[in-house]
């Protein structure tokens, strides 16, 4: 079995084992989960190393070596997986957050530990699935698998006040989005089948992305079709990004979820959307992308500015961070919309950076929330004196989120801005730059009001993070942020290599359109160093 499949199998297997473990032996349960996530982290790092040393070539080679395992032949479902630079980054992200999440939950979760970790691992497996599969059926499969456990995670272990509403809203909203995307996927599927049948009337349909891309490269998808399909795919996936105004599920979902839940949710789940867009929608419907993305670039502004200002009005620390997430995702959207190597790589890098950062933030918030049982900012204050370690970590997290250099977020946001301008979105770029100011405003306010100012006796009883077991997850995440912030080149090179062919496709489409309409192609952007490799494969 290839290492990619292992990424999905290990957590599922662990979950399966946990079913057999008696619920009373919680220690065993915890360690099983931690071990499983540890293994996935190992695999994630292994792939990252492969990408570093071997470059994209190594990944392509590795992917090519993995056979298509036919699943349901008559409808063309096959279990086939693959990685490129982009997914390597995401794999690393997910394995990091999963591991950190397990550690955090290790001491944070005391009730129904067994059920919790079963669901948590299932969630992790689902996310891994989305990042690796090359089959549209399993893409949707994994997507749903990642969404639904969130319901119980939030519902059972979330904060009692709003968990039922939040959990229900999140699940239904994301499912609805996924279904819209599914409509788009099915469009692609049948269009591809028609294309396959041109060659061989007896040909069976196929959910495999390579076939879809092959059809797309072969010009099987008309422009009109691409516009429709892209719109559906993008709308569907944009719900989980979350793109304004489809974001209302997200902040309350953050707020209600248990610490590790929000970590996975904000850290990884929200990245599924943008990843799926890049993985499927871009290469499959370049024309559609070229047609719609300018609008996305506009909506991204709504995300950044609106999200920022709403965050400014929040009194609940988790809501602040929640809205700041949707504001940050605006940068991702902008980067994606720019369709430049710089911008898109920046977007993916930001997905990584924001994932780690926000996981860290929610881990910390969860840590003190479990003791204070209040997220209401005016109640809190001066916590840094009771919990200096957590306070320090939170300051670092805030700085990272505010786009302070030295953390990965700065580099990625800078890339996005450069990319946006390169694509000719000067106005958006400037607004994006200004967004950083807004971010700083509400983040510093929250930071100051929660951790600084006069010490409050009512919090004197709460304890700081003690011992390696409690501190490890935070330290781990901070280190990652710092390492890739101080020297982003390794990460950006890996991502870039994966992004280039995708970008090349859409840029080609843009140029086509420009030629047809007769206006000059998007001003200053440069073609990727490597031309787009046609995603064909011997069948």
């Amino acid at each position, binding site marked *: 079995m290839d290492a990619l499949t292992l990424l999905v199998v290990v957590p599922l297997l662990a979950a399966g084992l946990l079913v057999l473990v008696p619920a009373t032996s919680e220690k065993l349960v915890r360690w099983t989960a931690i071990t499983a996530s540890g293994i996935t982290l190992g695999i994630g790092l292994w792939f990252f190393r492969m990408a570093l040393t071997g470059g994209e070539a190594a990944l392509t080679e590795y992917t090519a070596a993995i056979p298509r395992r036919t699943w349901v032949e008559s409808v063309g*479902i096959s279990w086939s997986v693959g990685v490129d630079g982009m997914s390597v980054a995401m794999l690393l992200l997910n394995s990091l957050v999963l591991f950190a999440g397990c550690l955090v939950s290790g001491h944070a979760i005391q009730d129904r530990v067994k059920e919790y970790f079963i669901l948590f691992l299932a969630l992790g497996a689902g996310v891994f699935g989305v990042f690796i599969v090359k089959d549209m059926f399993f893409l949707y499969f994994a997507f749903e698998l990642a969404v639904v456990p969130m319901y119980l995670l939030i519902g059972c272990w979330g904060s009692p006040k709003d968990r039922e509403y939040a959990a229900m809203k999140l*699940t*239904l909203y994301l499912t609805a989005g996924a279904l819209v995307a*599914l409509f788009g996927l099915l469009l692609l599927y*049948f269009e591809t089948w028609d294309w396959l049948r041109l060659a061989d009337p007896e040909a069976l349909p196929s959910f495999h992305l390579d076939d879809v891309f092959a059809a797309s490269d072969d010009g099987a998808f008309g422009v009109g079709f691409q516009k429709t399909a892209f719109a559906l795919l993008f709308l569907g996936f944009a719900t989980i990004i979350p793109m304004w105004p489809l974001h209302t599920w997200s902040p309350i979902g953050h707020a209600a979820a248990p610490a590790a839940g929000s970590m996975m949710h904000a850290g990884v789940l929200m990245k599924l959307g943008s990843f799926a867009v890049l993985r499927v929608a871009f290469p499959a419907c370049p024309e559609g992308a070229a047609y719609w993305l300018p609008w996305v670039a506009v909506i991204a502004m709504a995300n950044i500015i609106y999200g920022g200002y709403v965050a400014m009005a929040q009194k609940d620390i988790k809501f602040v961070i929640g809205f700041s997430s949707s504001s940050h995702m605006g940068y991702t959207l902008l980067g994606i919309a720019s369709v430049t190597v710089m911008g898109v790589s920046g977007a993916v890098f930001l997905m990584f950076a924001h994932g780690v950062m926000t996981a860290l933030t929610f881990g910390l918030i969860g840590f003190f929330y479990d003791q204070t049982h209040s997220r209401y900012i005016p109640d809190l204050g001066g916590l840094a004196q009771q919990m200096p370690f957590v306070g320090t970590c939170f300051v670092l997290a805030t700085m990272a989120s505010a786009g302070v250099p030295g953390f990965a977020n700065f580099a990625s946001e800078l890339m996005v801005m450069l990319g946006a301008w390169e694509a000719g979105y000067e106005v958006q770029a400037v607004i994006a730059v200004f967004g950083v100011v807004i971010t700083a405003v509400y983040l510093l306010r929250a930071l100051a009001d929660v951790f600084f100012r006069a010490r409050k006796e009512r919090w004197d009883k709460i304890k700081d993070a003690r011992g390696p077991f409690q501190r490890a997850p935070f330290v781990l995440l901070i280190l990652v942020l710092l390492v890739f912030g101080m020297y982003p080149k390794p990460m950006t090179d890996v991502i870039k290599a994966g992004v280039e062919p995708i970008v090349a496709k859409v840029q080609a489409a843009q140029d086509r359109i420009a030629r047809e309409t007769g206006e000059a192609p998007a001003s200053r952007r440069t073609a990727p160093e490597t031309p787009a490799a046609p995603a064909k494969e011997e069948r």
Partner: protein
Amino acid sequence: MNPILLLPEFVAVAAALGVMLYDLWLPKDRKAVLCTVSMVACVAVFAATFVPAVADGGTAFGGSYLVDGMALLLKRLFAITALLVFVMSRDYVEDLPRGRGEYYTLCLLATSGMLICASVNDFMSLFVALEVVTVSFFVLVAFKRDSTKSVEAGLKMLVIGSISAALLLYGIAFIYGATGSVFFADYRALVEAPDFVLSTELLVGILLVFLGLGFKTSAVPMHVWVPDVYEGAPTPITAFLSVGSKLAGFVLMLRILEVFGRSGVVADELTPFLALIAALTLFYGNLGAIPQTNIKRLMGYSSIGQCGYILLGVAAAWETGISATLFYMTAYVFTNLAVFTVIVYVARSTKSHEIDDYSGLARRHPLLGAAMTIGLLSLAGVPPILGFVGKFLAIGAAFARPELQWLVVCGLINVVVSMYYYLCVIKRMWIKDARHPADPAVPRRVKIALVVSMIVLIGGGLAPQLVEKMTAPAAAQLGLSKTPR
């Protein structure tokens, strides 16, 4: 003419009679033996379908009886259904004041009726088989004859059932009038003939037949009995109804679709008709389920909704569509029976079917909680559970027909709607605190049954090809168009 083809039916009928006789000299306190006998009978039926002579398929009685892939698949499903129903019935029947023997006899008779339904090849046997099932169910539904609810349910089912039977019959009469035959073989020849023209009365006949069958499949407009009867009937019977009788209806629908659908003319008439019914059924079932507070009633509406999804595949009316339908049915058997088993045993401890009484079930009885959760999620179509794949395939099959894509949209909307009310039940089981401290006592055989169903559901969800390997060939044998028109 090889009667050996009817081996499964023989077994079932023989068992029914045997149980009836055995019941006569069994002392009152040892009636439970009958349950064991019935279960053994089901296993025997299941085994009988694998006897080469049967498994090879063929026709009997001058072609009025047909055994093909679909028939075999359905027979096996019916056997499993009956088995699981008996598993959950045992304790329930022990609580009944009287008529335990009759209970098993009638169940076995109904089963034999379903078995015949699976392989009818002419309208006479269709009608008779159908009535065997229906009439047995009239009795079973009203079985608790001191319970007002049970009797009322029986009456309602009786009246609506008879009306639908009359409609069916009248439709058959029309078809007979238009074609001069009641044998499917003749119809196949007729519609495939190049000079075939679709006369109005033939069409009306076919439509009436479908509407009549709608009673069993609980499709709009013949669904009106479903919620009341599901609530009033003895719970194991509700389970049997929701699976056995529904599947019997669907297998007949598929059979007639296969017979007449070979002609593009008829198919073009049927598709919009079925699509219309499917859409109505989807919305009726799923929206109606939202405000329910009684789990059996909820399952009633849910089974209307599920019927809508199966109709998606039927309406698509091409090979993959039928395959998807069969897949969906297979998933549905295990899913629904698991859920109802839980309902039976929860009700034994709480003496109630209020959804609120499921609060904290996941804590009180993890096994029941897990089974219920997985079952409901499978109904909602959530991976990695069998129901998800079924729903996915059905929707995909319908999607293939451009003129059905509006129906797909309805289907997708209802996925969300149905997820809402299923999650509401799950919410109570997992999030709310327990109302009834009493832990339901669950005998070992039920535990085994539940665990097996769960394994089937999850395993099938992860490796759907195992199920698909059974359904696809069965669908292929029907010889409908291999590609969506």
